[in-house]
């Protein structure tokens, strides 16, 4: 394991894994943790014990990731689990999403925060319906990087011809679905081939191991540094004599690089000002970048409150009363045209009405069914909303922070859906 100093200044890579138990996904995660020496003595003893009790004659690395009692009893994964591991080059945050058909919503949830998706493909089966579904979801969620881990290569005799065949199918799928930065790596999670350590079993493969690939992905290039966006989350007003006139707008940068002197428009009001200072607890800073929590002070005393968006006056988002979005429906209760919901977008929550369910996709064929009338649990579709109050949005493909929203049921308070803005109009 690396020393503390080496680990101090690494980047955080968030990844989501997709696949079912049958694809060996749990084994892959176990393998990643095991071969990077993240599994500690007591955890290993625990899974050795559990493996023995189940009558396995090998250490079942899949047991490492089974968290809840029901899962251990039924041998399934029922929810997204989050895990961390660290190598000398990078700190990883892993969202482990179950792969069964009924768990589309978990995959969408896990993918929403991820920089990279690792999609498991069984080398014996090649591209199947589930592969298409996972590719569709990571494309819809605009993940900037996708890795297809072609697993169980040991069961196809490490065949180069078989891998090439799968690569052809995957390349076609990725291009059809506009999957970003796809990579394909032949592995065996069970044997440890090409996961962390390079294998001798596939001399024909000249590429990197899975871990090497994940460690090399360039994250800074994914930041949206073009469009300055800053949702106001909280207004800091000390109410003390020494800070009598202090009004700081606190939030997390949703786009662009924020510096002192930048011109600002406050949306939806349209008032204008200039950035007087960008601060943290440590005092003024030179710049705040996407993902950074900071406090912005404005030169003018204008009315700004939670839910407002600070933006670049020369590069405006759409101040929308009508939004068309890709939606994943996440509630057991179906939704129909005319339904009233709440939309939480950045730091603003508004009431909305579903004016039209434009289409839902048939996940098996990836074909759209127009005007289905309703959406059910795990449906993916396109929905047009009318908003009671305006939201300042960008297309999700342009900005994942200002293009995303969640749908909340006002009666039950449940989160019932996820939305990604495709298009918006001001009236």
């Amino acid at each position: 394991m690396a020393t503390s100093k080496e680990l101090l200044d690494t980047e955080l890579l968030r990844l989501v894994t997709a696949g079912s138990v049958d694809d060996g996904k749990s084994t892959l995660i176990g393998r990643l943790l095991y071969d990077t020496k993240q599994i500690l003595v007591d955890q290993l003893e625990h899974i050795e014990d559990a493996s023995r009790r189940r009558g396995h004659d090998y250490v079942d690395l899949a047991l490492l990731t089974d968290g809840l009692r029901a899962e251990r009893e039924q041998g399934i994964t029922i929810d997204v689990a989050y895990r961390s591991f660290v190598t000398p080059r990078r700190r990883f945050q892993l969202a482990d999403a179950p792969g069964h058909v009924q768990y589309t919503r978990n995959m969408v949830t896990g993918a929403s925060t991820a920089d990279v998706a690792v999609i498991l493909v069984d080398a014996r089966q090649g591209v199947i319906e589930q592969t298409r579904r996972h590719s569709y979801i990571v494309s819809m969620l605009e993940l900037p990087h996708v890795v297809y881990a072609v697993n169980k290569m040991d069961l196809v005799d490490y065949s180069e011809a078989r891998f090439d065949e799968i690569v052809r199918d995957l390349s076609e799928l990725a291009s059809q679905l506009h999957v970003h930065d796809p990579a394909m790596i032949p592995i065996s999670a069970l044997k440890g081939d090409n996961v962390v350590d390079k294998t001798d079993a596939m001399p024909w493969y000249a590429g990197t191991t899975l871990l090497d690939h994940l460690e090399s992905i360039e994250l800074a290039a994914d930041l949206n540094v073009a469009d300055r966006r800053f949702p106001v989350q909280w207004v800091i007003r000390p109410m003390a004599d020494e800070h009598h006139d202090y009004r700081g707008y606190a939030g997390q940068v949703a786009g662009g690089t924020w510096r002192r002197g930048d011109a600002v428009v406050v949306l939806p009001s349209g008032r204008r000002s200039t950035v007087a200072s960008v601060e943290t607890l440590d005092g003024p800073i030179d710049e705040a970048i996407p993902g950074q929590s900071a406090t912005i002070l404005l030169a003018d005393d204008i009315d700004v409150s939670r839910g407002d968006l600070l933006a670049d006056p020369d590069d405006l988002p759409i101040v929308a009363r009508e939004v068309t979005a890709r939606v994943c429906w996440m509630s057991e209760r179906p939704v129909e045209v005319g339904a009233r919901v709440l939309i939480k977008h950045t730091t603003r929550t508004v009431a909305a009405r579903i004016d039209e369910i434009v289409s839902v996709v048939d996940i098996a064929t990836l074909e759209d069914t127009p005007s289905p009338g309703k959406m059910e649990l795990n449906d993916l579709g396109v929905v047009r909303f009318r908003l009671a109050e305006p939201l300042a949005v960008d297309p999700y493909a342009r900005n994942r922070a200002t293009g995303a929203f969640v749908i909340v049921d006002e009666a039950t308070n449940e989160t019932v859906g996820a939305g990604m803005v495709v298009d918006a109009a001001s009236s």
Partner: protein
Amino acid sequence: MRALSHLDALESEAIHIMREVAAERERPVLLFSGGKDSIVMLRLAEKAFRPAKFPFPVMHVDTGHNFPEVLEYRDRRVAELGERLVVASVQESIDKGRVVEQTGPRASRNQLQTTTLLDAIEEHGFDAAMGGARRDEERARAKERIFSFRDDFGQWNPRAQRPELWNLYNARIRKGEHIRVFPISNWTELDVWQYVAREQLELPSIYFAHERDVFRRDGMLYAASEFIERYPDEDTFAATVRFRTVGDMTCTGGVLSEARSLVDVVDEIAATNVTERGETRADDRVSEAAMEDRKRVGYF
């Protein structure tokens, strides 16, 4: 341009979460145990709300069996920050007959604090309790949301969790319900120590190697104290130890260590081969699903 370092990314995420809680709930509270995780939480609250005061009080659930070093630290730190401290006392819960004290060498007040916590949440009308729990601590935690919804009885239902997407947290609840919020969910033990070192945070002295009287039980070293009854064959001896977690004295074990400075501790953690809770927390050893069971009934 480069992306944020992992500590900066985790810090920004935690600050964002705290501000969401403050903005969306009427009566939040920050739970504070005196442990390193809640000391990090205090620093994050400073980062989120200074130069203003915290928009919530700090609450300690005092089992009455705490390390004296930790209580001293708690009072001093909260006073330095100029924030409000609420103490919820397990002893009071016992005196009022809300819970019954366990007896014998295995007695612990760890379980009892769940009742004290839930009573205090109700008494003060808190609707959001922020805690320093992390997903790397335990397998059930890995599946818990950052905003974790609790029903009227304070219970967690792992099968009915709200989907949590992007950085958009749903903090809506009905009257009588509350949410637990874990801003440092995604941090690891090593991240916490690195952050403590980077921010030069002071910790209670028991986190560093020191000499004290201990005894051995279940392969762990416990501090000898008036709060824990020993079996006849459990002799005390002096050892140089430090504590990796700070809980009730009856369920927190120490580890043999010579790490007397922060740098030494961080190096030791980076090279460690046993998890924090596996090594030093008796409360998680009871059964395979120990944490899950306690969480279901309202534990932190």
